[in-house]
Protein backbone atom coordinates (compact mmCIF):
# COMPACT_ATOMS: atom_id res chain seq x y z
CA UNK A 1 0.00 0.00 0.00
CA UNK A 2 1.53 3.35 -1.01
CA UNK A 3 1.73 6.00 1.69
CA UNK A 4 0.26 8.60 -0.65
CA UNK A 5 -1.70 7.95 -3.81
CA UNK A 6 -2.90 10.77 -6.05
CA UNK A 7 -5.22 9.94 -8.95
CA UNK A 8 -6.28 12.34 -11.71
CA UNK A 9 -6.22 15.24 -9.27
CA UNK A 10 -7.56 18.55 -10.53
CA UNK A 11 -7.99 21.63 -8.40
CA UNK A 12 -9.58 25.00 -9.18
CA UNK A 13 -9.41 27.88 -6.66
CA UNK A 14 -12.67 29.73 -5.85
CA UNK A 15 -11.38 32.58 -8.06
CA UNK A 16 -11.67 30.20 -11.03
CA UNK A 17 -7.92 29.71 -11.40
CA UNK A 18 -7.08 26.16 -12.47
CA UNK A 19 -4.02 25.34 -10.34
CA UNK A 20 -3.81 21.55 -10.81
CA UNK A 21 -4.65 20.03 -14.17
CA UNK A 22 -4.47 16.26 -13.69
CA UNK A 23 -1.86 14.88 -11.29
CA UNK A 24 -1.03 11.21 -10.78
CA UNK A 25 1.55 10.39 -8.11
CA UNK A 26 2.48 7.53 -5.85
CA UNK A 27 4.73 7.89 -2.81
CA UNK A 28 5.86 4.81 -0.87
CA UNK A 29 6.53 4.37 2.84
CA UNK A 30 9.85 5.90 4.07
CA UNK A 31 10.54 7.63 0.76
CA UNK A 32 12.10 11.07 0.50
CA UNK A 33 10.63 12.98 -2.42
CA UNK A 34 11.53 16.48 -3.52
CA UNK A 35 9.11 18.66 -5.46
CA UNK A 36 10.60 21.37 -7.67
CA UNK A 37 9.37 23.71 -10.40
CA UNK A 38 8.46 27.20 -11.45
CA UNK A 39 6.90 29.80 -9.14
CA UNK A 40 3.15 29.35 -9.37
CA UNK A 41 3.34 25.89 -10.97
CA UNK A 42 1.17 24.28 -8.26
CA UNK A 43 3.62 22.71 -5.77
CA UNK A 44 2.03 24.17 -2.63
CA UNK A 45 -1.48 23.56 -3.95
CA UNK A 46 -0.57 19.90 -4.53
CA UNK A 47 0.87 19.17 -1.09
CA UNK A 48 -1.96 21.01 0.71
CA UNK A 49 -4.13 18.14 -0.55
CA UNK A 50 -2.08 15.61 1.44
CA UNK A 51 -3.33 16.75 4.84
CA UNK A 52 -6.77 17.82 3.68
CA UNK A 53 -6.16 21.59 3.78
CA UNK A 54 -7.51 21.49 0.21
CA UNK A 55 -9.95 18.93 -1.20
CA UNK A 56 -9.85 17.87 -4.89
CA UNK A 57 -12.14 19.59 -7.38
CA UNK A 58 -11.99 16.23 -9.14
CA UNK A 59 -9.88 13.09 -8.74
CA UNK A 60 -8.78 11.37 -5.53
CA UNK A 61 -6.10 11.65 -2.86
CA UNK A 62 -5.47 8.62 -0.64
CA UNK A 63 -3.36 8.73 2.52
CA UNK A 64 -2.64 5.22 3.82
CA UNK A 65 -5.69 4.00 1.90
CA UNK A 66 -7.96 6.66 3.37
CA UNK A 67 -9.63 8.97 0.87
CA UNK A 68 -8.98 12.52 2.14
CA UNK A 69 -12.51 13.59 1.17
CA UNK A 70 -13.89 11.41 3.99
CA UNK A 71 -11.61 12.82 6.71
CA UNK A 72 -11.18 16.15 8.50
CA UNK A 73 -7.90 18.08 8.67
CA UNK A 74 -7.71 17.24 12.39
CA UNK A 75 -7.94 13.50 11.68
CA UNK A 76 -5.41 13.64 8.86
CA UNK A 77 -3.01 15.69 11.02
CA UNK A 78 -2.27 12.60 13.10
CA UNK A 79 -0.68 11.05 10.03
CA UNK A 80 0.40 14.00 7.89
CA UNK A 81 2.19 17.13 9.10
CA UNK A 82 2.35 20.11 6.73
CA UNK A 83 4.81 22.91 7.48
CA UNK A 84 3.72 26.11 5.74
CA UNK A 85 5.85 27.98 3.21
CA UNK A 86 5.24 31.09 5.28
CA UNK A 87 5.64 30.10 8.96
CA UNK A 88 3.76 33.24 10.00
CA UNK A 89 0.55 31.63 8.68
CA UNK A 90 1.08 28.71 11.03
CA UNK A 91 2.02 30.38 14.32
CA UNK A 92 -0.67 31.91 16.54
CA UNK A 93 0.19 31.21 20.21
CA UNK A 94 1.73 33.52 22.81
CA UNK A 95 4.82 31.42 23.48
CA UNK A 96 6.92 28.97 21.51
CA UNK A 97 6.22 26.35 24.17
CA UNK A 98 2.43 26.68 23.68
CA UNK A 99 2.99 26.47 19.93
CA UNK A 100 4.78 23.14 20.35
CA UNK A 101 2.28 21.82 22.91
CA UNK A 102 -0.86 22.67 20.94
CA UNK A 103 -0.65 19.88 18.33
CA UNK A 104 0.12 16.86 20.53
CA UNK A 105 -2.48 17.90 23.12
CA UNK A 106 -5.08 18.29 20.40
CA UNK A 107 -4.55 14.82 18.99
CA UNK A 108 -4.82 13.30 22.47
CA UNK A 109 -1.24 12.75 23.68
CA UNK A 110 -1.06 12.49 27.50
CA UNK A 111 0.35 15.40 29.49
CA UNK A 112 3.58 13.55 30.21
CA UNK A 113 4.09 12.36 26.66
CA UNK A 114 3.43 15.87 25.34
CA UNK A 115 5.92 17.38 27.76
CA UNK A 116 8.69 14.98 26.88
CA UNK A 117 8.08 15.40 23.14
CA UNK A 118 8.22 19.19 23.42
CA UNK A 119 11.57 18.96 25.25
CA UNK A 120 13.02 16.47 22.80
CA UNK A 121 11.87 18.26 19.65
CA UNK A 122 12.89 21.71 20.93
CA UNK A 123 16.42 20.38 21.40
CA UNK A 124 16.42 18.66 18.04
CA UNK A 125 15.41 21.87 16.23
CA UNK A 126 17.75 24.20 18.16
CA UNK A 127 14.97 26.29 19.71
CA UNK A 128 15.23 25.12 23.33
CA UNK A 129 16.37 28.58 24.43
CA UNK A 130 13.40 30.20 22.67
CA UNK A 131 10.63 28.20 24.42
CA UNK A 132 9.38 31.07 26.59
CA UNK A 133 9.48 33.75 23.90
CA UNK A 134 6.62 35.06 21.77
CA UNK A 135 6.94 33.56 18.27
CA UNK A 136 6.00 36.87 16.67
CA UNK A 137 9.16 38.46 18.13
CA UNK A 138 11.46 35.95 16.48
CA UNK A 139 13.52 36.30 13.33
CA UNK A 140 12.08 34.64 10.22
CA UNK A 141 14.48 31.68 10.23
CA UNK A 142 13.62 31.02 13.89
CA UNK A 143 9.91 31.07 13.01
CA UNK A 144 10.71 28.46 10.37
CA UNK A 145 12.25 26.19 13.04
CA UNK A 146 9.32 26.76 15.40
CA UNK A 147 6.88 25.87 12.61
CA UNK A 148 8.82 22.65 11.97
CA UNK A 149 8.99 21.82 15.67
CA UNK A 150 5.28 22.42 16.26
CA UNK A 151 4.50 19.72 13.70
CA UNK A 152 7.24 17.29 14.78
CA UNK A 153 5.87 17.19 18.35
CA UNK A 154 2.83 15.34 16.92
CA UNK A 155 5.16 12.68 15.51
CA UNK A 156 3.35 12.31 12.18
CA UNK A 157 4.41 9.49 9.85
CA UNK A 158 4.36 11.76 6.80
CA UNK A 159 6.02 15.16 6.82
CA UNK A 160 5.70 17.89 4.24
CA UNK A 161 8.23 20.71 4.31
CA UNK A 162 7.27 23.61 2.03
CA UNK A 163 10.50 25.53 1.32
CA UNK A 164 12.02 25.06 4.79
CA UNK A 165 15.42 26.45 3.80
CA UNK A 166 14.46 29.87 2.41
CA UNK A 167 16.01 32.06 5.10
CA UNK A 168 18.48 29.67 6.69
CA UNK A 169 22.20 30.43 6.58
CA UNK A 170 24.61 27.66 5.50
CA UNK A 171 24.75 26.25 9.02
CA UNK A 172 20.95 26.19 9.21
CA UNK A 173 20.71 24.36 5.89
CA UNK A 174 23.17 21.75 7.18
CA UNK A 175 21.07 21.34 10.33
CA UNK A 176 18.01 20.82 8.15
CA UNK A 177 19.79 18.18 6.10
CA UNK A 178 20.80 16.37 9.32
CA UNK A 179 17.26 16.58 10.65
CA UNK A 180 15.77 15.19 7.44
CA UNK A 181 18.28 12.31 7.39
CA UNK A 182 17.45 11.54 11.01
CA UNK A 183 13.71 11.49 10.24
CA UNK A 184 14.28 9.18 7.27
CA UNK A 185 16.23 6.79 9.51
CA UNK A 186 13.22 6.61 11.80
CA UNK A 187 11.09 5.54 8.80
CA UNK A 188 9.21 8.75 8.16
CA UNK A 189 7.96 9.62 4.69
CA UNK A 190 9.22 13.05 3.62
CA UNK A 191 8.08 15.44 0.94
CA UNK A 192 10.13 18.59 0.56
CA UNK A 193 9.48 21.54 -1.74
CA UNK A 194 12.49 23.67 -2.57
CA UNK A 195 14.08 25.87 -5.26
CA UNK A 196 17.60 24.98 -4.10
CA UNK A 197 18.51 21.99 -6.25
CA UNK A 198 21.76 21.48 -4.42
CA UNK A 199 19.95 21.13 -1.10
CA UNK A 200 17.43 18.91 -2.90
CA UNK A 201 20.08 16.45 -4.10
CA UNK A 202 21.39 16.09 -0.55
CA UNK A 203 18.06 14.88 0.82
CA UNK A 204 16.47 12.93 -2.00
CA UNK A 205 17.07 10.86 -5.08
CA UNK A 206 13.58 11.38 -6.47
CA UNK A 207 12.78 14.76 -8.02
CA UNK A 208 9.21 15.47 -9.06
CA UNK A 209 9.09 18.44 -11.44
CA UNK A 210 5.76 20.29 -11.49
CA UNK A 211 4.97 22.56 -14.41
CA UNK A 212 1.71 24.35 -15.13
CA UNK A 213 -0.34 22.16 -12.77
CA UNK A 214 1.02 18.89 -14.14
CA UNK A 215 3.92 16.56 -13.40
CA UNK A 216 6.54 17.04 -16.08
CA UNK A 217 9.28 14.70 -14.82
CA UNK A 218 9.67 12.23 -11.96
CA UNK A 219 13.23 10.95 -11.91
CA UNK A 220 16.59 10.93 -10.08
CA UNK A 221 18.48 14.26 -10.34
CA UNK A 222 21.11 12.77 -12.70
CA UNK A 223 18.38 12.26 -15.28
CA UNK A 224 16.67 15.59 -14.62
CA UNK A 225 19.76 17.79 -14.93
CA UNK A 226 20.34 16.76 -18.57
CA UNK A 227 16.76 17.37 -19.77
CA UNK A 228 17.47 20.83 -21.15
CA UNK A 229 14.08 21.30 -22.82
CA UNK A 230 12.09 20.35 -19.72
CA UNK A 231 14.36 22.40 -17.45
CA UNK A 232 13.62 25.50 -19.52
CA UNK A 233 9.91 24.71 -19.52
CA UNK A 234 9.92 24.44 -15.70
CA UNK A 235 12.03 27.60 -15.11
CA UNK A 236 14.87 25.49 -13.69
CA UNK A 237 18.63 25.72 -14.11
CA UNK A 238 20.78 22.76 -13.13
CA UNK A 239 23.21 23.60 -10.33
CA UNK A 240 26.78 24.78 -11.06
CA UNK A 241 28.72 21.57 -10.32
CA UNK A 242 26.55 19.27 -12.50
CA UNK A 243 26.63 21.94 -15.23
CA UNK A 244 30.41 22.17 -15.01
CA UNK A 245 30.75 18.39 -15.29
CA UNK A 246 28.62 18.26 -18.43
CA UNK A 247 30.50 21.14 -20.02
CA UNK A 248 33.77 19.26 -19.39
CA UNK A 249 32.42 16.25 -21.25
CA UNK A 250 31.37 14.00 -18.33
CA UNK A 251 28.88 11.31 -19.32
CA UNK A 252 26.49 12.12 -16.46
CA UNK A 253 26.02 15.27 -14.42
CA UNK A 254 27.97 14.93 -11.14
CA UNK A 255 25.60 15.44 -8.20
CA UNK A 256 28.23 15.97 -5.49
CA UNK A 257 31.87 17.05 -5.36
CA UNK A 258 32.75 13.41 -4.74
CA UNK A 259 30.93 12.41 -7.94
CA UNK A 260 32.75 15.16 -9.79
CA UNK A 261 36.14 13.95 -8.64
CA UNK A 262 35.40 10.33 -9.51
CA UNK A 263 34.24 11.24 -13.01
CA UNK A 264 37.18 13.59 -13.46
CA UNK A 265 39.55 10.72 -12.64
CA UNK A 266 37.78 8.45 -15.13
CA UNK A 267 38.26 11.01 -17.88
CA UNK A 268 42.03 10.87 -17.75
Amino acid at each position, binding site marked *: MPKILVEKLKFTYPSGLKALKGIDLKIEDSESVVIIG*ENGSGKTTLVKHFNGLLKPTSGQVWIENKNTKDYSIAELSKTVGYIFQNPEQQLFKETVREELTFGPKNIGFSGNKTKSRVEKIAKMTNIYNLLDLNPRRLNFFQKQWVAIASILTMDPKILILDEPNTSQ*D*FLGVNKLIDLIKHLLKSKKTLITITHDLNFASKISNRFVVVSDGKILLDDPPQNIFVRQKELVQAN*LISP*PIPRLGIS*LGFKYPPISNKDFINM*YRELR
Partner: protein
Amino acid sequence: MGINIKDLSFIYPGSEKKALKNIDLNIGDGEFCCILGKNLAGKSTLCYTITGFIPHFFKGKIEGKVLIDDLDTTDLPLHKIVTKVGFVLQNPFNQLSGSKFTVFEELAFSLENLGIFRNEMIERVEEILKKLKIYDLKHRSPYELSGGQQQMVAIASILVMKPKILVLDEPTSQLDPVNSKLIFSLVEELNNDGVTIVIAEHKIDEIVEFADRILLIEDGKIVLDDSPNEVFKTFSKYKKYTKYMRPPCFVKLAQRMEREGLWKKNNGYPINFEQAKKEFSKRPTI
Protein backbone atom coordinates in the same frame (compact mmCIF):
# COMPACT_ATOMS: atom_id res chain seq x y z
CA MET B 1 23.84 58.95 -4.26
CA GLY B 2 26.10 57.76 -1.46
CA ILE B 3 25.62 56.38 2.05
CA ASN B 4 27.79 57.42 5.00
CA ILE B 5 27.53 55.66 8.32
CA LYS B 6 29.52 57.06 11.23
CA ASP B 7 30.18 55.12 14.44
CA LEU B 8 26.68 53.66 14.46
CA SER B 9 25.39 51.47 17.27
CA PHE B 10 21.82 50.32 17.76
CA ILE B 11 19.81 48.53 20.46
CA TYR B 12 16.24 47.35 19.71
CA PRO B 13 13.56 48.48 22.19
CA GLY B 14 13.23 46.01 25.06
CA SER B 15 16.62 44.48 24.30
CA GLU B 16 19.94 44.93 26.08
CA LYS B 17 22.17 43.65 23.34
CA LYS B 18 23.65 45.87 20.66
CA ALA B 19 22.39 44.65 17.29
CA LEU B 20 24.95 46.90 15.56
CA LYS B 21 28.27 47.87 17.10
CA ASN B 22 30.24 50.93 16.05
CA ILE B 23 29.67 50.61 12.33
CA ASP B 24 31.74 52.88 10.11
CA LEU B 25 30.83 52.47 6.48
CA ASN B 26 30.92 54.55 3.33
CA ILE B 27 29.14 53.28 0.25
CA GLY B 28 29.88 55.36 -2.82
CA ASP B 29 27.49 56.41 -5.56
CA GLY B 30 26.93 53.49 -7.95
CA GLU B 31 28.55 50.76 -5.85
CA PHE B 32 27.21 47.21 -5.71
CA CYS B 33 27.62 45.91 -2.14
CA CYS B 34 26.57 42.62 -0.70
CA ILE B 35 26.00 42.07 3.00
CA LEU B 36 26.86 38.53 4.04
CA GLY B 37 26.71 36.91 7.45
CA LYS B 38 25.02 34.22 9.48
CA ASN B 39 21.45 34.40 10.76
CA LEU B 40 21.19 37.07 13.50
CA ALA B 41 24.48 38.67 12.49
CA GLY B 42 22.77 42.02 11.84
CA LYS B 43 22.17 42.11 8.07
CA SER B 44 18.54 43.22 8.23
CA THR B 45 19.30 45.73 11.00
CA LEU B 46 21.97 47.34 8.81
CA CYS B 47 19.43 47.48 5.97
CA TYR B 48 16.93 49.19 8.32
CA THR B 49 19.44 51.92 9.17
CA ILE B 50 20.23 52.66 5.52
CA THR B 51 16.53 52.88 4.65
CA GLY B 52 15.48 55.04 7.62
CA PHE B 53 13.35 52.25 9.14
CA ILE B 54 15.71 52.86 12.02
CA PRO B 55 15.02 55.34 13.65
CA HIS B 56 11.59 56.08 12.11
CA PHE B 57 9.95 52.67 12.46
CA PHE B 58 12.11 50.85 15.03
CA LYS B 59 12.64 53.38 17.80
CA GLY B 60 15.35 51.77 19.96
CA LYS B 61 18.56 53.32 21.21
CA ILE B 62 20.74 54.77 18.51
CA GLU B 63 24.24 56.26 18.57
CA GLY B 64 26.14 57.68 15.62
CA LYS B 65 24.90 58.98 12.28
CA VAL B 66 23.56 57.77 8.96
CA LEU B 67 23.75 60.16 6.01
CA ILE B 68 21.99 59.55 2.71
CA ASP B 69 23.09 61.94 0.01
CA ASP B 70 24.66 64.01 2.84
CA LEU B 71 21.35 64.27 4.72
CA ASP B 72 20.91 62.83 8.22
CA THR B 73 18.18 60.13 8.18
CA THR B 74 17.08 61.23 11.66
CA ASP B 75 16.03 64.61 10.23
CA LEU B 76 14.41 63.22 7.07
CA PRO B 77 10.85 61.89 7.40
CA LEU B 78 10.34 58.36 6.05
CA HIS B 79 8.16 59.51 3.11
CA LYS B 80 11.09 61.68 1.92
CA ILE B 81 13.63 58.88 2.32
CA VAL B 82 11.40 56.55 0.27
CA THR B 83 11.80 58.85 -2.74
CA LYS B 84 15.55 58.19 -2.73
CA VAL B 85 15.95 54.75 -1.18
CA GLY B 86 13.93 51.70 -2.27
CA PHE B 87 13.74 48.86 0.24
CA VAL B 88 12.74 45.29 -0.64
CA LEU B 89 11.84 43.60 2.64
CA GLN B 90 12.91 40.11 3.71
CA ASN B 91 9.27 38.96 3.93
CA PRO B 92 7.35 39.94 0.76
CA PHE B 93 4.02 39.63 2.53
CA ASN B 94 4.93 42.65 4.67
CA GLN B 95 5.67 44.70 1.57
CA LEU B 96 2.08 44.68 0.31
CA SER B 97 -0.12 47.63 1.16
CA GLY B 98 -3.03 45.49 2.33
CA SER B 99 -5.54 47.76 0.64
CA LYS B 100 -5.34 46.94 -3.08
CA PHE B 101 -7.36 44.39 -5.02
CA THR B 102 -5.08 43.81 -8.01
CA VAL B 103 -1.37 43.60 -8.68
CA PHE B 104 -1.74 46.55 -11.06
CA GLU B 105 -3.29 48.73 -8.34
CA GLU B 106 -0.64 47.62 -5.86
CA LEU B 107 2.16 48.82 -8.16
CA ALA B 108 0.31 51.99 -9.12
CA PHE B 109 -0.09 52.76 -5.41
CA SER B 110 3.71 52.90 -5.04
CA LEU B 111 3.75 55.65 -7.67
CA GLU B 112 0.72 57.59 -6.38
CA ASN B 113 2.77 58.23 -3.26
CA LEU B 114 5.48 59.79 -5.41
CA GLY B 115 2.94 62.13 -7.05
CA ILE B 116 3.35 60.74 -10.56
CA PHE B 117 0.70 61.49 -13.20
CA ARG B 118 -1.71 58.88 -14.48
CA ASN B 119 -0.29 58.31 -17.98
CA GLU B 120 3.27 57.91 -16.80
CA MET B 121 2.04 55.75 -13.95
CA ILE B 122 0.32 53.28 -16.27
CA GLU B 123 3.32 53.20 -18.58
CA ARG B 124 5.75 52.51 -15.75
CA VAL B 125 3.62 49.78 -14.18
CA GLU B 126 3.21 48.04 -17.55
CA GLU B 127 6.95 48.30 -18.16
CA ILE B 128 7.92 46.73 -14.82
CA LEU B 129 5.33 43.94 -15.19
CA LYS B 130 6.89 43.02 -18.52
CA LYS B 131 10.47 43.30 -17.24
CA LEU B 132 9.77 40.93 -14.37
CA LYS B 133 7.75 38.64 -16.65
CA ILE B 134 4.70 38.82 -14.39
CA TYR B 135 2.37 40.57 -16.84
CA ASP B 136 -0.11 37.70 -16.53
CA LEU B 137 -0.55 38.58 -12.83
CA LYS B 138 -1.68 42.14 -13.64
CA HIS B 139 -5.36 41.66 -12.75
CA ARG B 140 -4.83 39.06 -10.02
CA SER B 141 -5.27 39.73 -6.30
CA PRO B 142 -1.90 40.17 -4.53
CA TYR B 143 -3.25 37.86 -1.80
CA GLU B 144 -4.13 34.98 -4.11
CA LEU B 145 -0.64 34.34 -5.42
CA SER B 146 2.00 31.72 -4.75
CA GLY B 147 4.83 32.70 -2.39
CA GLY B 148 7.28 33.28 -5.22
CA GLN B 149 4.79 35.27 -7.30
CA GLN B 150 4.14 37.47 -4.27
CA GLN B 151 7.89 38.03 -3.87
CA MET B 152 8.13 39.10 -7.55
CA VAL B 153 5.28 41.59 -7.01
CA ALA B 154 6.94 42.96 -3.86
CA ILE B 155 10.18 43.52 -5.79
CA ALA B 156 8.26 45.14 -8.66
CA SER B 157 6.50 47.52 -6.26
CA ILE B 158 9.91 48.94 -5.32
CA LEU B 159 11.63 48.83 -8.73
CA VAL B 160 8.73 50.72 -10.31
CA MET B 161 9.67 53.75 -8.19
CA LYS B 162 13.14 53.87 -9.80
CA PRO B 163 15.03 54.70 -6.59
CA LYS B 164 18.63 55.94 -6.80
CA ILE B 165 19.60 53.65 -3.93
CA LEU B 166 18.19 50.14 -3.82
CA VAL B 167 18.39 48.04 -0.65
CA LEU B 168 17.27 44.42 -0.94
CA ASP B 169 16.99 42.04 2.04
CA GLU B 170 17.20 38.42 0.81
CA PRO B 171 15.02 39.32 -2.19
CA THR B 172 15.16 35.99 -4.04
CA SER B 173 14.57 33.57 -1.15
CA GLN B 174 11.38 32.09 -2.63
CA LEU B 175 12.16 32.47 -6.33
CA ASP B 176 12.75 29.62 -8.76
CA PRO B 177 16.25 29.52 -10.33
CA VAL B 178 15.23 31.41 -13.50
CA ASN B 179 13.35 34.17 -11.65
CA SER B 180 16.20 34.48 -9.18
CA LYS B 181 18.67 34.94 -12.02
CA LEU B 182 16.32 37.45 -13.66
CA ILE B 183 16.24 39.60 -10.53
CA PHE B 184 20.03 39.51 -10.08
CA SER B 185 20.47 40.53 -13.75
CA LEU B 186 17.94 43.36 -13.48
CA VAL B 187 19.67 44.64 -10.36
CA GLU B 188 22.99 44.52 -12.19
CA GLU B 189 21.45 46.42 -15.10
CA LEU B 190 20.21 49.13 -12.72
CA ASN B 191 23.66 49.27 -11.17
CA ASN B 192 25.16 49.78 -14.64
CA ASP B 193 22.81 52.74 -15.01
CA GLY B 194 24.23 54.22 -11.80
CA VAL B 195 21.91 52.93 -9.08
CA THR B 196 23.64 52.17 -5.77
CA ILE B 197 22.89 48.59 -4.67
CA VAL B 198 23.00 47.09 -1.19
CA ILE B 199 21.83 43.50 -0.99
CA ALA B 200 21.74 41.10 1.96
CA GLU B 201 22.03 37.53 0.73
CA HIS B 202 22.92 33.95 1.55
CA LYS B 203 23.38 32.96 -2.12
CA ILE B 204 27.13 33.29 -2.32
CA ASP B 205 27.44 31.64 -5.77
CA GLU B 206 25.26 34.35 -7.32
CA ILE B 207 26.84 37.15 -5.30
CA VAL B 208 30.39 36.54 -6.54
CA GLU B 209 29.07 37.02 -10.09
CA PHE B 210 27.51 40.40 -9.44
CA ALA B 211 28.81 42.28 -6.38
CA ASP B 212 31.83 44.62 -6.35
CA ARG B 213 32.16 44.53 -2.62
CA ILE B 214 31.43 42.07 0.16
CA LEU B 215 30.59 43.29 3.65
CA LEU B 216 30.70 40.42 6.12
CA ILE B 217 28.83 41.03 9.35
CA GLU B 218 29.31 39.01 12.52
CA ASP B 219 27.65 39.86 15.81
CA GLY B 220 26.78 43.42 14.76
CA LYS B 221 30.25 44.30 13.47
CA ILE B 222 31.64 44.51 9.96
CA VAL B 223 34.53 42.05 10.10
CA LEU B 224 35.44 42.01 6.42
CA ASP B 225 35.09 44.55 3.62
CA ASP B 226 36.67 43.54 0.32
CA SER B 227 35.97 42.45 -3.27
CA PRO B 228 34.75 38.87 -3.88
CA ASN B 229 37.88 38.24 -5.89
CA GLU B 230 40.17 39.34 -3.08
CA VAL B 231 38.24 37.36 -0.47
CA PHE B 232 38.08 34.02 -2.25
CA LYS B 233 41.01 33.89 -4.67
CA THR B 234 43.44 32.97 -1.92
CA PHE B 235 42.35 30.82 0.95
CA SER B 236 44.50 32.69 3.46
CA LYS B 237 42.20 35.71 3.21
CA TYR B 238 39.08 33.63 3.62
CA LYS B 239 40.39 31.24 6.27
CA LYS B 240 39.53 33.49 9.22
CA TYR B 241 35.89 33.64 8.21
CA THR B 242 34.97 30.02 7.43
CA LYS B 243 32.67 30.01 10.47
CA TYR B 244 30.63 32.97 9.20
CA MET B 245 30.13 32.20 5.51
CA ARG B 246 30.60 29.34 3.11
CA PRO B 247 32.88 29.71 0.09
CA PRO B 248 31.53 29.69 -3.50
CA CYS B 249 30.93 26.09 -4.65
CA PHE B 250 33.81 26.17 -7.14
CA VAL B 251 36.31 27.16 -4.45
CA LYS B 252 35.22 24.20 -2.36
CA LEU B 253 35.52 21.87 -5.34
CA ALA B 254 38.94 23.23 -6.28
CA GLN B 255 40.22 22.75 -2.75
CA ARG B 256 39.14 19.13 -2.83
CA MET B 257 40.72 18.62 -6.27
CA GLU B 258 43.91 20.15 -4.88
CA ARG B 259 43.92 17.80 -1.87
CA GLU B 260 43.46 14.80 -4.13
CA GLY B 261 46.30 15.92 -6.37
CA LEU B 262 44.08 16.49 -9.41
CA TRP B 263 44.62 20.21 -9.79
CA LYS B 264 47.23 22.81 -8.91
CA LYS B 265 46.54 26.39 -7.95
CA ASN B 266 48.24 29.01 -10.15
CA ASN B 267 46.02 32.07 -10.37
CA GLY B 268 44.09 31.38 -7.21
CA TYR B 269 40.81 29.48 -6.85
CA PRO B 270 38.13 29.75 -9.53
CA ILE B 271 35.15 31.64 -8.13
CA ASN B 272 32.66 31.39 -11.01
CA PHE B 273 31.64 29.02 -13.79
CA GLU B 274 33.87 30.44 -16.53
CA GLN B 275 36.95 30.44 -14.33
CA ALA B 276 36.23 26.90 -13.13
CA LYS B 277 35.72 25.63 -16.66
CA LYS B 278 39.00 27.19 -17.76
CA GLU B 279 40.94 25.87 -14.76
CA PHE B 280 39.66 22.31 -14.95
CA SER B 281 39.92 21.92 -18.76
CA LYS B 282 43.65 22.58 -18.64
CA ARG B 283 44.63 18.94 -18.58
CA PRO B 284 45.90 17.66 -21.92
CA THR B 285 43.42 14.75 -22.01
CA ILE B 286 40.32 16.96 -22.20
